[in-house]
C-alpha cells in the first residue's frame, strides 16, 4: 500500500434531458415571473467594442434532423483577445462584453442565434496566436455529457492556417467542420453529431 493521493472524482454527467429550458431559460419555456430575464441572452450592449456579428446555425442528429430541444452556450474573447474572467491575467476585458452567451435552439426550426462580436486572437500555451474562435458547449436530451467544440471564421484564412489547434486535426478534410461561413455580418455554423460531416468535438 502507498499513501492515497486524496483526489476526488468529478461528479459524473447526466443528460440535460428534454426540459433543460425550465432550469436554464425559464422565460423561453413559458415560466415567467421567476427571473426577470433568461441568463446569457445578451452578450453585447451599445458600447461593446468590435465588429458586430451574428452566429447562426443548427445541430443535426445522425438522421439529418435538426435538434429542436438543445441548449448551446458559447464563450469567447473580446475584440482585443481578452476573456471577461477572473482567470484572465493579461489585462482587463471590455466591461461591455460578457463573453458568454446561452441560446436554446428554436422549438420549430432548430436554429440557434447569437448576437456578438468577432473575437480577437488569444495566445496558445507556447505564445503563438490562435486564430479567432468561439468555444461551444452543447447539451440536449440524448447527449450524455456536454459536447465541446470550436467555431472558427472561414474568412480568417491566414490566421486559421497557423492556428495550433486546427493544426492538430489529423484528418484535414475534417477541418472545414469547424469553419463558419460568412454571409454579410452573419456567420453560419451547423453542427453535425454524426455522419460524414460529423463535427470535430474536443476533449479539453
Amino acid at each position: 500500500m502507498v499513501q492515497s493521493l486524496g483526489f476526488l472524482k468529478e461528479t459524473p454527467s447526466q443528460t440535460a434531458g428534454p426540459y433543460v429550458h425550465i432550469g436554464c431559460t425559464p422565460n423561453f419555456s413559458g415560466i415567467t415571473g421567476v427571473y426577470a430575464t433568461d441568463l446569457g441572452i445578451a452578450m453585447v450592449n451599445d458600447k461593446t467594442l468590435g465588429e458586430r456579428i451574428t452566429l447562426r446555425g443548427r445541430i443535426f442528429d445522425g438522421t439529418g434532423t435538426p435538434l429542436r430541444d438543445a441548449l448551446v452556450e458559447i464563450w469567447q474573447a473580446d475584440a482585443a483577445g481578452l476573456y471577461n474572467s477572473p482567470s484572465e491575467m493579461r489585462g482587463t476585458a471590455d466591461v461591455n462584453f460578457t463573453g458568454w452567451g446561452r441560446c436554446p435552439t428554436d422549438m420549430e426550426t432548430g436554429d440557434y442565434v447569437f448576437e456578438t462580436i468577432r473575437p480577437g486572437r488569444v495566445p496558445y500555451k507556447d505564445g503563438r496566436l490562435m486564430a479567432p474562435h468561439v468555444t461551444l458547449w452543447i447539451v440536449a436530451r440524448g447527449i450524455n455529457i456536454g459536447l465541446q467544440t470550436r467555431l472558427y471564421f472561414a474568412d480568417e484564412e491566414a490566421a486559421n492556417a497557423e492556428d495550433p489547434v486546427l493544426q492538430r486535426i489529423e484528418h484535414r478534410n475534417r477541418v472545414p467542420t469547424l469553419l463558419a461561413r460568412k454571409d454579410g455580418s452573419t456567420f453560419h455554423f451547423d453542427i453535425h453529431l454524426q455522419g460524414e460531416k460529423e463535427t470535430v468535438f474536443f476533449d479539453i
Partner: protein
Amino acid sequence: MSNRKPETGAFFQRDRQWHPPAYTPDYKTSVVRSPQRALLSLDNTLSEITGPVFGHALLGELDADLIHNFARPGESAIGQRIIVHGRVVDERGVGVAGALLEFWQANAGGRYRHKREGYLAALDPNFGGCGRTITDEDGYYRFRTVKPGAYPWPNGVNDWRPAHIHFSVFGHGFAQRLITQMYFEGDPMIWQCPIVKSIPDKAAIEQLIAALDRQNTIPMDARAYKFDIVLRGRRSTLFENRLEGN
C-alpha cells in the same frame, strides 16, 4: 466571488470512463445524438481555463426557494418539503466559491411545467420548477423545494425516471461546465433507469445519490438531503516552465 487569488492552471484530464459514454443504446435517444469519431484531445488553452462568473447580485430573493418562487402570494407548492444543500469542491477538495448552480425538476406528482410535457399527472399552480443559487466563500449552497415525483417517459414501454433534480453547474473555467442529476437515498427506481445506467461504474452512480441528512432537517418543517458536487481540479502552475519566452 472569492478574495482568493484566481487560479490559472489547466484542468485535470476528464476521466471519460467515469462519465457516461456518448453512445448508450438502452437510452434510445443517444443512438443518433452521439458522436462516433474520436474526440480531439487538447491540453487546456486560455479558452478553457477561463470562464464566466456570476455575482450574487444576480440572485432574487426567492431564487433558491422553489416552494415559493412561482407561488401566488401567501400560497406554497404542494409536496414533501425538503432542503437540498451541500458543497461544490474541485477534485483536489478545494471549495469552489461563487459557483452558479441552476436546478430544475418535476413537481411532487412527477409533472414538469413544459410545453412538450404530456404526462397526465396534474400541474401544481404554485410550482414552476426552477431555481438557482451561488456558492459562498467555502463552496456551500442550499435551496428549498418539494421532493419531485417519479415519472414515466417514452423509451421502453414501461420506463420510469426515479425522483431527481437536474443541476447545471459553472465553476471558474469553461472546461468545468457540467450538467448532472441528483437522486434520492433509498429509491429503488434508481437502479432500473436507463439514463442512470448510462454511467458504467456503480460508485459513480452512488456519487449522484443524495443522503438523507437528519442533522440538517428543520424540525416540523423540512427534511434535508445533502448533495456535494465535484468539479474538475486544476493543475498547479508552480513548476511550469514559461514557454512564452517573455
